[in-house]
């Protein structure tokens, strides 16, 4: 056995592959055994092979730097994360339940607002949120679904249970890397697949196509709807993914200026054969930039009249504009209530307990326990403006106390979680690193969840930051069936 593994210890955290007693978890046993038999040289050879595959496959993400935009190779760890399908099934059911409730909520908010009338949620926190778009009032997209693609972030705490950390309902990204990670593992560690039956992930583009096609306003007249992926362009950090998904669906990858809205309120793309009508837009630009007529006038990325076309029912947009209203961190705290209210069910997957600073009792608790809590602004995404209490200086804590008292609506707090770890190959050693998981939930005529998702791993020792732009990497994520 490779000695690197003998010394492996993830003290004080739940480890994805290795138990407290140092033995591999059931689902991961065969994989860990194989890695333990690989010599140090063999490990580094596999790693090099993975790097070569990444270059050959052209998997990159764009980072903006002073010297212009550069494409960085995708950082990837060769040791996969293994989850048993039995455990995954219940998480997956919980995610679908959650996404259904969130969609009921969005549809309700832009229509009857029953949930506000019934006093489940205070009206002002919803209607005064910047994510609430009055332009969307009265709309009811097909199947009542607004957020067709949802990329929830899951973490595991000490108890080994999955918690939803946030629901990304606007333009979640990362799914292309989930697909490519599997492709890399197949290339560099083919023998791993001999003893496993692993759920495939590469049909995501077809599932996405199916979901989008089910939204087409001309589904009856046209067998193959015209679907486009709307990107802000090559300088967007997720451009690789936009191209990947367009390619995988056989759809056109368009930028704002490629589209126009006609006098008939239909959306057309400009082609060499003349204007061609578009049925479904998979929108990968922020709604604020989507239509200068309806939102930000200074947007050059968008298409004038797009909202008009959408409201006239001439084109489907995924995710629908206005979906972000459910993406607020204060609203997040009420998701378990929504599930009970709209579906009459008990939540199948947990949320992280959340203290709302706008409630007096919660606020008192938060201010008294700033050193134990994580404080987050309600409207930001991407980890901006967060204070991690146990790691923050007294001055920072004082600053946040002031911010909270000044604008309590804008802050929430959650207990500091002990993110789970998994063995990761770093500088020739096998060491525990923290990780999260982003599955993707599709919702159209039917619902579907990716088997697993994108595991992001903080490659820096002790770090909890998994973002690829800040030293994060990723792992292939396996959902394995039966005993192995």
């Amino acid at each position, binding site marked *: 056995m490779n000695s690197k593994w003998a010394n492996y210890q993830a003290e004080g955290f739940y480890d994805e592959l290795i138990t407290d007693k140092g033995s591999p978890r059931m689902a991961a046993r065969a994989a860990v055994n194989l890695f333990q038999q690989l010599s140090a040289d063999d490990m580094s050879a596999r790693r090099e092979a993975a790097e070569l595959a990444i270059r050959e496959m052209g998997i990159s993400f764009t980072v903006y730097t002073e010297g212009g935009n550069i494409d960085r190779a995708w950082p990837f760890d060769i040791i996969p994360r293994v989850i048993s399908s039995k455990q995954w099934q219940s998480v997956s059911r919980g995610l679908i339940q959650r996404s259904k409730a969130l969609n009921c909520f969005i549809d309700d908010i832009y229509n009857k607002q029953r949930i506000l009338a019934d006093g489940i949620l205070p009206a002002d926190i919803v209607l005064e949120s910047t994510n609430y778009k009055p332009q969307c009032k009265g709309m009811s997209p097909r199947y009542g679904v607004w957020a067709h693609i949802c990329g929830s972030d899951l973490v595991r705490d000490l108890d080994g249970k999955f918690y939803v950390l946030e629901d990304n309902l606007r333009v979640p990204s990362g799914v292309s890397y989930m697909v490519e990670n599997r492709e890399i593992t197949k290339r560099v560690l083919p023998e791993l697949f001999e003893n496993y039956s692993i759920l495939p992930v590469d049909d995501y583009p077809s599932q996405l196509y199916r979901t989008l096609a089910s939204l087409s306003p001309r589904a009856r007249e046209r067998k193959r709807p015209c679907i486009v992926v709307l990107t802000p362009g090559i300088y967007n950090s997720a451009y690789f993914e936009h191209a990947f998904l367009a390619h995988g669906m056989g759809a056109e990858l368009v930028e704002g*200026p*490629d589209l*126009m809205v006609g006098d008939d309120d239909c959306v057309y793309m*400009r*082609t*060499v054969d003349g204007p*061609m009508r578009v049925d479904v837009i998979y929108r990968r630009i922020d709604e604020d930039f989507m239509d200068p007529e309806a939102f930000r006038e200074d947007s050059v990325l968008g298409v004038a009249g797009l909202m008009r076309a959408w409201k006239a029912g001439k084109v489907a947009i995924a995710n629908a504009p206005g979906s972000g209203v459910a993406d607020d961190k204060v609203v997040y705290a009420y998701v378990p209530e929504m599930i009970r209210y709209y579906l009459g069910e008990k939540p199948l997957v947990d949320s992280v307990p959340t203290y709302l600073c706008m409630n007096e009792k919660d606020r008192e608790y938060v201010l008294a326990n700033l050193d134990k809590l994580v404080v987050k602004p309600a409207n930001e995404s991407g980890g901006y403006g967060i204070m991690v209490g146990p790691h923050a200086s007294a001055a920072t804590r004082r600053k946040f106390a002031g911010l909270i008292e000044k604008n309590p609506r804008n802050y929430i707090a959650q207990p500091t979680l002990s993110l789970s770890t998994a063995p990761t190959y770093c500088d020739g050693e096998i060491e525990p690193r923290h990780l999260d998981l982003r599955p993707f939930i599709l919702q159209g005529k039917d619902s579907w969840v990716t088997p697993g998702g994108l595991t992001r791993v903080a490659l820096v020792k002790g770090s909890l930051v998994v973002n690829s732009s800040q030293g994060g990497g990723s792992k292939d994520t396996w959902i394995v069936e039966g005993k192995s």
Partner: protein
Amino acid sequence: MTMLSRVADRLYWKSRYLERAEDTARLVSSYHMLIMDIPRGADLGWEVLLRILDAEPQFYSRYRVASEQNIVKFLVADTDNPGSVAYAVRAARENVRTTRDVLPEETWEQVNELHLFVREAAEKSIGRRNRLAFLNEVISHSQMISGLLQTTLSRDHAYRFTLLGHLIERCDMTTRVVDVGVMELMERDARFAVFDPLIWSSLLQSLSALGAYRRVVGPLLEGGSVAEFVLKDREHPRSVVYCLRGMRDAVKGLARNEDALRQIERMRRKLSRLHVEQISPDEFHGFIDNFQLLINELHEIVSDTWFRPET
């Protein structure tokens, strides 16, 4: 299967820039070889390259002296000059970056490799010592990319716009080269005439047409027949007549092609009425000037019809 106007536009420019990089490299390389054969005073001076490319104003706005060093730098390594090899390669790469999906997979890799090579080596290749090796590498890499597209690109819209870009740029370059050749050589002091065949051979070489000329016309190089050959030979793939035929074939596969076809036909007819041996150098120059305007008009028609149609 249709194609986005923006994608067509980028494919077209990708080809124009690739062709420009190759043609400029050829031009500099053949002049570089020529200059070593001709005594000082009998040569045309490096400025002739600026005249061919109509780049004098641009050059003098940034360089004081028209030295060999400065001119080669301007044409090869200057990334602010849209006519330089380095600029053209970078622009070609940017255009391929956003059209990768409709091109054969290796295209991006090859174009990117060429870009990395040029970025790395251009500046070091201005001096005579490394110059030729650098230019040859640019030429052969460009030819490899053209060959790759020629043998693997489906004959769809992507191919049509790729072809159009190459051919329009090539026509432009060919007419420039003969124009300057005729003007410079026919007007200068007769005592240098002994070197004229050398210069004509160099110009032919810059158009990759020397061998073909010798086989078709004969081994003796003479101004009028050289111009006649590069403009009107029906078989040589770099002649203007040949390019026009290629453009017509490309355009035929596109919708709403009436204006473009009419323009190509106009150019073809104009060319067929030209008899270089029967006109003066001045008249020839006038003809080329006119013809260049027609090339520009064709470019405008292509852009208006397919790249920025109805708003």
